[in-house]
């Protein structure tokens, strides 16, 4: 079966499904028409830890207590063998948040507002970003020129920000963590290079950056692959005198930076201390015992 065939079959199935759905459409609006405002509860407004639907639970308090230790969807009850409408919608909403985190871009206005230089890897669009990890590790020629022209050469610490797999994570935490790091390093008397943003970046792009600028420590704040618990999680990778092709074990990492993990500003203050350790011990990754 060729692709055109397949497409037409799918189109036909979708058409039939729509037809089958049509009679129910009249019932979609649950609100009486004469009411001007419709109070539909926001499906993602509550934390999953607090969502509990088990009817007549033996000990609800105990269950809720256990639920505090996990984001997992437990205690959500069921309709026959399936999810209830509420939990199914929530699942899909969370999944959509994760997809959006990957497929949107960090807004240009935000980058300009923070005064970060705008750089890009050799990747040209999202599809290529997802399918060609190798290109996401190289800074493109135009950006190299920009770096050479505008960024301070050979800084002790170079911090930069990159979208990675979650632009949402950067929009939520990037600025706050960066500023807190900068403040922490300043209190230690450590100079920081010119901040910039790299679009379509993967973690090892920091090695290329490290070589280009000759930084002693290179630090990247990058969006983590989103999951169903949060799309806002950011990581920070640090390397001492990074070189292209160096093993991953040379990187020190602090992950899980988001409002329900380590708060952005607190993570920044903590990372500043780690960077100080990397500088004084002149090593990073598994060699650095924290």
């Amino acid at each position, binding site marked *: 079966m060729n692709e055109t065939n397949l497409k037409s079959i799918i189109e036909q199935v979708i058409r039939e499904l729509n037809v089958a759905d049509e009679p129910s459409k009249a019932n979609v609006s649950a609100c009486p028409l004469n009411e001007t405002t419709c109070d539909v509860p926001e499906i993602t407004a509550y934390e999953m830890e607090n969502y509990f639907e088990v009817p007549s639970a033996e000990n609800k308090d105990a269950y809720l207590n256990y639920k505090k230790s996990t984001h997992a969807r437990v205690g959500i009850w069921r309709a026959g063998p399936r999810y209830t409408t509420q939990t199914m919608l929530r699942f899909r909403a969370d999944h959509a948040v994760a997809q959006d985190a990957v497929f949107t871009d960090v807004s240009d206005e935000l980058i300009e507002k923070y005064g970060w230089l705008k750089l890009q890897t050799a990747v040209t669009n999202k599809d290529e970003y997802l399918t060609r990890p190798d290109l996401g590790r190289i800074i493109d020629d135009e950006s190299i020129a920009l770096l050479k022209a505008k960024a301070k050469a050979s800084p002790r610490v170079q911090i930069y920000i990159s979208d990675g797999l979650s632009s949402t994570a950067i929009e939520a935490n990037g600025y706050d963590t960066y500023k807190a790091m900068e403040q922490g390093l300043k209190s230690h008397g450590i100079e920081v290079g010119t901040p910039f943003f790299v679009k379509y970046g993967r973690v090892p792009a920091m090695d290329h950056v490290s070589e280009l600028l000759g930084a002693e420590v290179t630090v990247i704040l990058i969006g983590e692959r989103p999951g169903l618990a949060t799309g806002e999680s950011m990581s920070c990778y640090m390397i001492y005198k990074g070189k292209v092709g160096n093993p991953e074990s040379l990187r020190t990492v*602090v992950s899980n930076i988001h409002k329900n993990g*380590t*708060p952005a500003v607190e993570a920044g203050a903590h990372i500043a201390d780690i960077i100080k350790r990397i500088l004084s011990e002149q090593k990073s990754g598994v060699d650095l015992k924290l």
Partner: protein
Amino acid sequence: MKESMISVGIDIGTSTTQLVFCKMIIENTASAWTVPTVKIVDKEVLFRSDIYFTPLKSSDVIDAEAVKQLVLKIYEQAQMQPEAVDTGAVIITGETARKENAKEVLEMLSGLAGDFVVATAGPDLEGILAGKGSGACAYSKAHSCTVMNFDIGGGTTNVAIYKNGDVIDAACYDIGGRLIKVDKQGKIDYLSEKVKALSAKMALPLVIGQMADVKDLKRITDTMAEVMVSIAERRNGAHIDLPSAQEILITNHDLKTFDPIEAVFFSGGVADCMIETTKPWHTYGDIGFLLGESIRIAFEKTKVKAVHADETIRATVIGAGTHTTDISGSTIHYDRALLPIQNIPIIRLTELEEKSDSKARVEAITSRVKWFISQSDQSLMALSLRGHKSYGFDALQALASDIVKGMRAVIEAKLPLIILVDQDLAKSLGLSIRGNLSPEYPVICIDSVSVDNGDYIDIGVPVADGQVVPVIIKTLLFGY
């Protein structure tokens, strides 16, 4: 990477004095790729002293020097150097706590037990610690239920109620084994004031110097046991023939809550008397065995589930040794030279004040600081805040600047700025506050400690590579 802290518990009660040494294991429980989370992961009792009669000069005065010598002797027995002790608590309890020289005793001991020993007294705290030592608190957490602990000592019975591992209420009653003492011939040696009032009410012929009739004594202990059943059944004396008995026996205040409870724990010396039935009743020259029997029989008639505690006579001291010290969050900011620091009073902003705009927030802090100074005539205090999970950098700068402005009076007095935050914020907030002051200005900013207006805090010497500090919160929540 495990590390341990040695903690001492010293309990100087109405009738007995005892010590325990405990080891608290602290460990970073977070994975290698996240920010550290240092926690107390285990507690272990290293040494339990024998139980000694509290040295008294007279029936009202503790012999502080003799207590000190006793404690020194126990340190030696345990082969423990005072310098090796990191933290601990001295609890002067029961009737003894009301004795005037309690302060002198605490001063005698505080040098002895490391440089970070807290001295606290008060019946509610005693009861809360006893329930933690007896296992009642842990039981309520493990079974997600509400349980009551009766710590029945010589002078008082301390009641504490725990719900899912949290203490929700505490009270104290004058029910105890040594409220009536008899000599070898069976003559009454001593009657407490409360027992005198009770026996007058019940028209019993109990007089000091006269032979005690066991039947009369039994009527007193039966009434005490009935009061306890009434407390456990949350009926507040409703079924006792003598409704005022409970009122008479209240030490300072009654319980404030009425939630039903699922189990009752018995600890304290009298808890042992409840199960030991072979000895003559006057073995200890008091009513301990009579009271124990009365309580056992009274509770056997009820539907209340009674549990004999893991620790009985040592419950309070074990609670003191293991449950007074906690540790701060793991990302904090402090000047090492300031620590340890003790008895810092706390002022706390309301949620509304904390969320208001800069001008109102500065005013709120300023007025609280001023009020505190006018009340207490001292300027050293800690400011407590809630914080929230999504503080941005700019909002945090504003908060830091407001704090510095609001606490001007403290800064002018050149006292350290001490900030306590509920949420995980302290390191960045501390750095931000420092940014508003000269670099050498002393600042302590710690998080994951929940305190309230009127509480006091002690902050100890950093542990776990300086990542966390031990804290002892002396809360006034239950009126002690």
